[in-house]
């Protein structure tokens, strides 16, 4: 066989992009921001555990949550499976492809060698859709790649069975049931509720708005974890990459979330949400300021406490503004409920 006819689209983020493309393929007309918003993808976490050499942060929910939360809230059902045996995983993937079923798989990004070597890093939570095979190669729709790509059987297997943290274990999924009528109003509100909970109410000091504040307070300590100046410059520049480049849609997913709110305002017929989408766009602009300040510090190699405090202050502003925003979104949801 060769390629299954599949509309390849680039997306901001690999998981929401993969879920969106698969749902579009099966006839559900939905956008990436809607998938991201319904699944409460927006988030913040600042992490530094004893086994971590260097602190890290995340601006989105846990890998896998986009699919599971979206399914819970819309009634869409996905068949998902992990494997111990690579041969069995490959055989079942091939059988599905032979039945014209595109299949999303979790891989170590490093093995997706249609990207240039300098860009590929070991991250076990990349999602791509396999849309066909021919001889010893597979056709891949990857949200980060402009065209349909090809990857060898060996590379795909290595990517699907890389070990280490969050090992894919051959994980794959595809939709098996899409309800004829989805209650989008309910799903959108549940998604917003989930986002406000994630950002405001998780009782852990490194998650949500509290996580942004922790990041703001701890960034001045980063030099003590770095082995040299080059290393520190690279890590500080990674703030920019994580916020702008690495599948966020810019502004640390805040621009994507603003797009969701704009769409949601139409579905819920609530103009107040349209105003809030503009606010969220401005919040994203503020995150972009954090990105640019970090890139500047990294480039100029000025790692003084003063400069890092400046980035910390920008982060603290983000925390305050997001706390206010999500509190108001929470109230808006309560008001909307009362008005129905």
């Amino acid at each position, binding site marked *: 066989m060769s390629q299954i006819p599949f509309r390849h689209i*680039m*997306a*901001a983020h690999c998981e929401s*992009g993969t879920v969106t493309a698969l749902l579009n393929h099966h006839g559900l007309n939905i956008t*990436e*921001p809607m998938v991201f918003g319904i699944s409460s993808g927006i988030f913040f976490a600042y992490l530094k555990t004893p*086994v971590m*050499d260097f602190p890290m942060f995340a601006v989105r929910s846990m890998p896998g949550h986009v699919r599971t939360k979206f399914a819970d809230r819309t009634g869409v059902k996905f068949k998902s499976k992990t494997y111990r045996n690579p041969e069995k995983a490959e055989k079942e993937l091939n059988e599905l492809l032979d039945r014209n079923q595109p299949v999303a798989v979790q891989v170590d990004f*490093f093995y997706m060698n249609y990207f*240039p070597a*300098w*860009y590929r*890093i*070991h991250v076990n939570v990349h999602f791509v859709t396999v849309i066909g095979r021919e001889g010893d190669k597979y056709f891949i729709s990857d*949200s*980060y790649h*402009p065209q349909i790509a090809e990857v060898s059987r060996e590379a795909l297997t290595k990517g699907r069975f*890389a*070990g*280490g*943290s969050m*090992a894919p274990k051959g994980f794959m999924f595809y939709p098996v049931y899409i309800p004829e009528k989805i209650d989008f109003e309910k799903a959108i509100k549940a998604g917003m509720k989930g986002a406000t909970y994630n950002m405001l109410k998780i009782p852990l000091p490194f998650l949500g708005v509290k996580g942004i504040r922790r990041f703001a307070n701890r960034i001045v300590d980063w030099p003590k974890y770095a082995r040299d100046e*080059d*290393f520190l*410059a*690279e890590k500080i*520049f990674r703030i*920019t*990459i994580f916020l*702008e*480049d690495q*599948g966020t*849609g*810019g*502004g640390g997913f805040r*621009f*994507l979330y*603003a*797009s969701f709110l*704009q769409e949601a305002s139409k579905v819920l017929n609530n103009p107040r949400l349209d105003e809030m*989408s503009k606010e969220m*766009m401005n919040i*994203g*602009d503020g995150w*972009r300021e954090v*990105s640019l300040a970090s*890139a500047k510090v*990294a*480039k100029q190699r000025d790692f003084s406490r003063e400069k890092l405090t400046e980035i910390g202050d920008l982060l603290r502003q983000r925390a305050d503004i997001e706390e206010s925003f999500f509190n108001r979104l929470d109230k808006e949801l309560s008001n909307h409920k009362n008005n129905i």
Partner: protein
Amino acid sequence: MKEKDLVIDCPYHQVILYAEKGDGTYGPFQTGSYMAGVNISEHFRITGNHTRALLEQLKAGIISPVYYFMMIEGLTADELAGRTGISKFRVKKHLTPKGFSKMRISTMKRYTDVLNIPLANMFQIVCTIEDRNWDMGYQGEIDNSKTGSISQEKTDNPLVIETKIIQNRK
């Protein structure tokens, strides 16, 4: 952010960003990557410096090849342990030249499978073009129109030699 304010000219690395369109709606648009468009030369400079420093340490017998490749691939000892199935305690031993010298070939194979290099490269630094210290796993194409010769030299590390493929200038 308006779409026009996010445009980066970088045709070889494209990304999707969300921004405000001309009509006030928000949506996706394709543009160049900020990282690739603005910072790639700095990234190459930093990684190049890091690789060269590691090579010197390897040649001097200060670090083991496992440590070298682990760093090149951006892995940590914990991550390498998880990927090879070798205990963290043993991985940490193998990161030192002493621990490396006592390693079995079968164990080494588990590392090379994860680190994506031939087993032979655990014992040699391959320099593919004269005067350019490419990293050991470099597998770029060699210009076959030029004749070349291969030489091998000892380093201060008794377990590692330097293999040089020298292209003759025409």
